[in-house]
């Protein structure tokens, strides 16, 4: 009989955790919806606040854990070294906002409620934060499973959905992208897109104030 790999063991762990992961995602989504209600109710017609729960899929969780190892490789002789509970985002919620000025208001409202969660902002490469991210536990549901919530400018968040599935995720398997995903032109173009989206939002908000 073939020996069980680290991946096999992690698949088993994933499905034993899945009911709790679902409960954590529901709990987090519900709490976030509740604590952003006051913002939601006063949105102007052009403003947006979208809340999207997410459960990490089994293979995605295993690959994420593998990539957290130095060299992105499991030591098959030490299966006891690995646990999906080390992942910070088995369950998550993404809050998309437009325009960006709402981001601080939402972040403040949620941070007041999730004050024990650890902030882990996504850097914008210019000393600021592109998006806010917080990691912690929904203690009422599970003290083991870590979850994260993100507050992301909507234009950036929607771009990430395309960019991540087109470049980041297939890169390991698509030959044409495998060694090029980190290439200078793609990196530069990606930075240009992000900058353009941020500038669009900034200009839009300036026009509103005028």
């Amino acid at each position, binding site marked *: 009989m073939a020996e069980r790999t680290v991946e096999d063991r992690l698949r088993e762990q994933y499905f034993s955790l899945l009911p709790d992961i679902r409960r954590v995602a529901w709990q987090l989504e519900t709490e976030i919806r509740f604590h952003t209600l006051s913002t939601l109710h006063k949105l102007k017609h052009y403003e947006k606040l979208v809340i999207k729960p997410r459960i990490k899929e089994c293979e995605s969780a295993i690959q994420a854990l593998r*990539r957290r*190892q*130095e*060299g*992105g*490789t*499991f*030591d*098959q*002789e*030490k299966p006891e070294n690995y646990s999906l509970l080390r992942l910070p985002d088995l369950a998550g919620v993404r809050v998309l906002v437009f325009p960006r000025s709402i981001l601080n208001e939402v972040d403040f409202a949620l941070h007041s409620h999730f004050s024990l969660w650890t902030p882990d902002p996504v850097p914008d490469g210019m000393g600021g934060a592109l998006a806010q991210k917080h990691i912690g536990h929904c203690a009422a549901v599970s003290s083991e499973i870590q979850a994260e919530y993100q507050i992301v400018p909507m234009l950036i968040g929607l771009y990430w959905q395309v960019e991540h599935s087109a470049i980041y995720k297939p*890169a*390991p398997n698509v030959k044409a*992208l*495998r*060694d090029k*995903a*980190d290439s*200078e032109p793609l990196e530069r173009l990606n930075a240009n897109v992000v900058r353009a989206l941020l500038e669009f939002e900034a200009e839009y908000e300036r026009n509103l104030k005028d």
Partner: protein
Amino acid sequence: MKKDILREADYRYNFDRDIYFNRKAKKAFSLEFVDDKPEEELERRIRESTNSAGWTFYFNSTPPEGVKRELERVLG
């Protein structure tokens, strides 16, 4: 920048394993190693000759034999 040093020395980035590698030199640097070590050390490691016929891995923590074998298989 460290990235430029590696690029100029013909190191490519393996996105899946987060390592910089050069098949001709048979050397691989983990992202953690590149992040943590100063540029001078990186340049020195790129220049240094290795007597081994196999791959040399520059990691912060010495990789176990099983991990080395798997990476050698992946890097070809």
